[in-house]
């Protein structure tokens, strides 16, 4: 389980995260929901120690992040995490070289699924394909936790469907996923938990299924209530 506890972060004068807490369990897909600039990406970067926090703590399976943690958790940001001059195949070699948790067969599987050419240079790929490669680099790692930042942003509809397919497959099954998006309607049926964030704070944290069963509301309904009411 990933525990974010009372995290504070200031950026210049602005308090970006205020005493923010939530948890994400392994085997569940947790979605951070909020408008642009509310701090979703910052939270994910903070979990990965890619940006400093001013207070609070973040635990992954009960421990603070260490170098070995990166074999257990990975982050798929909205920019490509490989050298653009590299060919897709070379990127795979790089990952295999450094990560024990790199799964070459899974990488091969995904390569074919996404219909990508390993000899193609990353810089020459379309935006959609670049996003797919980025995702691939995360998914082909046998990690327990996957963090994805706006996995659907700027992607064409068909690529989006492909990616959504991945979510329901065995590739995601037992892992813990935290993702951010503002296209909530697209993935509502996929997520287990929703965390509503506004102004750097958690407004509401709830199980999607419970709310649907007990109150008959969709996530979008809850959002409307919270943000407008």
């Amino acid at each position, binding site marked *: 389980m990933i525990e974010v506890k009372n995290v504070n972060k200031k950026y210049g004068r602005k308090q970006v995260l205020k005493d923010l807490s939530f948890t994400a369990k392994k085997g569940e897909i947790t979605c951070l929901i909020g408008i642009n600039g509310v701090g979703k990406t910052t939270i994910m970067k903070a979990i990965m120690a890619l940006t*400093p926090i001013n207070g609070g703590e973040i635990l992954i399976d009960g421990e603070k992040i260490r*170098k070995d943690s*990166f074999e257990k958790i990975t982050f798929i*940001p909205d920019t490509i*995490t*490989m050298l653009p001059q590299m060919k897709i195949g070379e990127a795979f070699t*790089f990952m295999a070289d*450094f990560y024990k948790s790199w799964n070459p067969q899974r990488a091969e599987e995904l390569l074919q699924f996404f219909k990508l050419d390993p000899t193609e240079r990353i810089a020459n790929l379309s935006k959609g394909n670049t996003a797919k490669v980025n995702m691939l680099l995360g998914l082909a790692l046998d990690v327990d936790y996957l963090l994805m930042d706006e996995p659907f942003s700027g992607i064409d509809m068909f690529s989006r469907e492909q990616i959504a397919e991945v979510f329901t497959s065995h590739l995601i099954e037992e892992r813990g996923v935290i993702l951010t998006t503002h296209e909530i309607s697209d993935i509502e049926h996929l997520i287990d938990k929703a965390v509503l964030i506004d102004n750097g704070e958690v407004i509401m944290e709830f199980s999607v299924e419970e709310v649907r069963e007990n109150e008959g509301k969709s996530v979008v309904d809850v959002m409307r209530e919270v943000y407008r009411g």
Partner: protein
Amino acid sequence: MKNYLKLVNFEISRFFKLYLILIGLTIVCQLIGVIRVSKGYMDLAEKVMDKNQLSVSRFIEQYGTFSVQRFVYSEWFLMSIYIGIAILIIYVFLIWYRDWLGKNSFIYRLLMLPTERITIYFAKLTAIMLLLLGLITLQLLLVLIEIQIVNSIVPSDFRTYSYGISNIDIFVLLYPNTFTAFILNYGIGLIFVAVLFTAILFERSYRLKGIFFAIVYGVLSLGVFFAPLLLNGFYPRYFYPLEIILMGMVTSFIVLGSTIWIANHLLKHKIMV
């Protein structure tokens, strides 16, 4: 340790193409230069001796003998040196910034590698030192070749008597007389690059505020490093030379140790992508 070697090799491979181009350029520049300068001198000698009917010794009286110095201070040579220095200095900064800037966000990957983040720092430091040492090695080999070329174009009576390269001023710094001095010079160079790296990390951790921290930190490090010499300046002869050297070693360790500690702290807790 293995990750360190992998990262060193990675950094070297990234720069390799440009490195080969730089090497090629240096070789071409210097070889052209040495041939032109030597031939130019001999052509001048021929012309003047012919026109004024001078003997070799009279010509030498007026125009001087040809020493390697003449070539070393010529434009071709100096240009190749300046280009090399410039590229190396630029790359000290670029080796970090290239992973952040533009379309590149490779820094995400580097910081998410399952290795101590300070390994990245050490790998980049090692890469820079290898590139530097590679260039000076190239220069050493080139000079030996160039001396041969000069000897083949300019006959011995026109040449200044000299043995080896130790009397060419520029080289005394790059190739000091003893191996101990060599280690010392390049050790100091390494400390200097390390401090620069940490300054860069300050900027990358605190952005604008970071530049200020970087400058303060840089000046402080310089101060501590040179403290023994400053002391010696204010109180001359109070400390014996050996004591000053020992103090220098201590301050060097302090500066190097603290720069690595700070870099580690910044990379682990303060860096921003």
